[in-house]
């Protein structure tokens, strides 16, 4: 039986499955990946579902190939995704850069586990956050979203496809083992609008494939549509032809960054928890934010007015949001499952205005609310 693409209704599923369903609902019809814990449930679900909804699933020989296939499929006109965990994420970096440079819309999921190296294959981590930002060589901007629940994993995956088409950029879902494996209620809406691809508005003989619209994003002509364009990872001009001049390079790299940074309000999402009267702000994301949530109540019981900024858009880092937070609170606590990655960003934006304390754990387990509480108490004592 051909399947339903959008499984509207209420389900009990884990974050990985929710990502798979979010992708299908968003119109993803190409998925290439290589098995890795704790991502496997995404691939397994899509191996089962995609053939039933007119899509293509392929298990590639490695993550280098998976990422390259996703970029190729996007140029073939598909909405395409891959999913992995740390070791595979490392292998994908070069072709994520290719997608950035060639302005290829696609979605990459990293279900983070304990790292470096093979680390803790089956246990949680959040140590790939900086790799998400800077993992491919060169200077670039990329969008990364961090779900904290299976429902949000579904919603953000749909969002990721829309943003990837809007900006012609790879969008990363930086989730983690616990969210990936956690079962919760997931409500899938009756309809999910499919994000359109920005199409050329002029005939092939007048089309310059990398000439941007006023918002700096060029329309995209896919293979076989008669535009016969050249696409290269080399620095290129508006025709898509290699141009090895420093001027062309600076112009291109700046545009690739500006097309995202200038419109950050469109995609910067966060959750403010009890921040209205907060004196101490926790900044966290993903599973760590859920633990921190519990610590807020403990702090309030002790009379510490604590609130939380939960980052949903991790990259580009929401500088304006964190800057205005620093104007309102007396101290900031960053909670994450690494030894201080996003906290560097927080410190950069806070600029020493208020103390910033990290509650870090390298991964393998989530924090306890008490650990977060002691961080809140510590920053409360700072004068």
């Amino acid at each position: 039986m051909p399947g339903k693409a959008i499984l509207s209704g209420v389900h009990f599923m884990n974050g990985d499955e929710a990502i798979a369903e979010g992708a299908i609902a968003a119109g993803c019809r190409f998925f290439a990946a290589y098995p890795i814990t704790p991502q496997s449930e995404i691939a397994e679900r899509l191996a089962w579902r995609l053939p039933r909804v007119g899509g293509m699933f392929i298990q590639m020989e490695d993550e280098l190939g998976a990422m390259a296939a996703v970029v190729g499929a996007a140029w073939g006109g598909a909405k395409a995704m891959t999913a992995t965990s740390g070791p595979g994420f490392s292998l994908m970096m070069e072709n994520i850069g290719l997608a950035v440079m060639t302005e290829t819309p696609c979605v990459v999921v990293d279900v983070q586990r304990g790292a470096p190296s093979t680390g803790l294959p089956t246990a949680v981590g959040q140590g790939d956050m900086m790799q998400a930002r800077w993992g491919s060589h060169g200077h670039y901007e990329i969008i990364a979203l961090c779900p904290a629940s299976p429902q949000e994993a579904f919603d953000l995956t749909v969002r990721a496809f829309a943003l990837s088409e809007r900006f012609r950029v790879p969008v990363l879902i930086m989730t983690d083992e616990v969210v990936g494996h956690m079962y919760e209620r997931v409500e899938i809406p009756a309809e999910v609008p499919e994000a359109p691809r920005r199409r050329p508005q002029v005939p092939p003989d007048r089309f310059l494939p990398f000439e941007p619209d006023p918002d700096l994003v060029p329309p995209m002509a896919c293979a076989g549509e008669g535009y016969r364009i050249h696409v290269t990872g080399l620095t290129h001009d508006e025709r898509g032809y290699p141009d090895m001049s420093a001027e062309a390079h600076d112009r291109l790299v700046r545009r690739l960054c500006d097309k995202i940074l200038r419109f950050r309000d469109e995609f910067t999402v966060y959750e403010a928890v009890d921040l209205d009267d907060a004196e101490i702000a926790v900044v966290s994301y993903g599973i760590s934010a859920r633990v921190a949530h519990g610590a807020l109540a403990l702090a309030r019981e002790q009379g510490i007015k604590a609130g939380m900024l939960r980052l949903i858009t991790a990259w580009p880092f929401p500088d304006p949001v964190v800057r205005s937070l620093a104007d309102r609170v007396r101290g900031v606590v960053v909670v994450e499952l690494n030894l201080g990655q996003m906290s560097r960003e927080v410190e950069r934006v806070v600029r020493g205005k208020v103390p910033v304390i990290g509650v870090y754990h390298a991964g393998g387990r989530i924090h306890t609310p008490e650990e977060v509480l002691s961080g809140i108490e510590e920053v409360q004592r700072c004068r």
Partner: protein
Amino acid sequence: MPVKAKPIPEAVPGVRHPMEKYLRTDRLPHIWCAGCGLGSALSCFLYALDELGWDPNSVAVVSGIGCTGRIAGYVRLDSYHTTHGRAIPFATGLKLAKPDLHVVVFSGDGDLFAIGGNHFIHAARRNVDLTILCVNNFNYGMTGGQVGPTTPLEGLTTTTPYGNFEHPFNLVHLAASAGASYVARWTTLDGRRLQRAMVEAMRKKGLTFVEILSPCPTNYGRRNKLGDGLDELRYYAKHALIRHGADPKEAEIVPGHDFLVGKFVDVEKPTYLEMYEAKVRELGGKR
């Protein structure tokens, strides 16, 4: 910013290349050295395309990185110059997302068989419907002539200054063993035969492979005292033996000895996509 198109250079005044319709003439002259075999390989491909008579809008060329990889930039087709070694998986994604497209991978021996070797064997095993054209110039041309997976024993390269002591691949044997549906080898001297092989390979479904032996006078040729590009073609004329259907194992290339060219494999088997679609039909769906 408006971009200025350069005037098309005329090698012989008033004479245009007959296959110009398939070339991005505004990108010429190309970057290749005098005497390099890449021009011949490209021109055979364009003649093959013309012979096939396909709508050029239905053909895509995917290249990796290297001198050969630059071919993608010169063809007036949908063309993708990807990352080093990843032309095959990129092409796999492209083909599976758009099955009515004819997808040709055109790349060098280092790109396809060193850094990208894993992708080649798996694409061949799956019989993905791709035509893979590999220019084998026995070294890494683009980066200045380092040893590659096809460099013959004792070959001099910038990273084997005392002579190569690694055993080289026999690409014909490798492609055949990995499961390619079609395997041929020609040299850039065999213009018409090479064109024919390309036509056959592109027309045939499944993973088809043509190895193109090609001079690199600037690097491999110079370091190994093979003379200029023309001298290397003379060497091919002297040593290439046409043996259709020969055992791929016997297609080793040893300098100073005769070597085999011809069509080694031409078999029928379902492609990856056909197998996938058959499964989908079993489920009662359509793709």
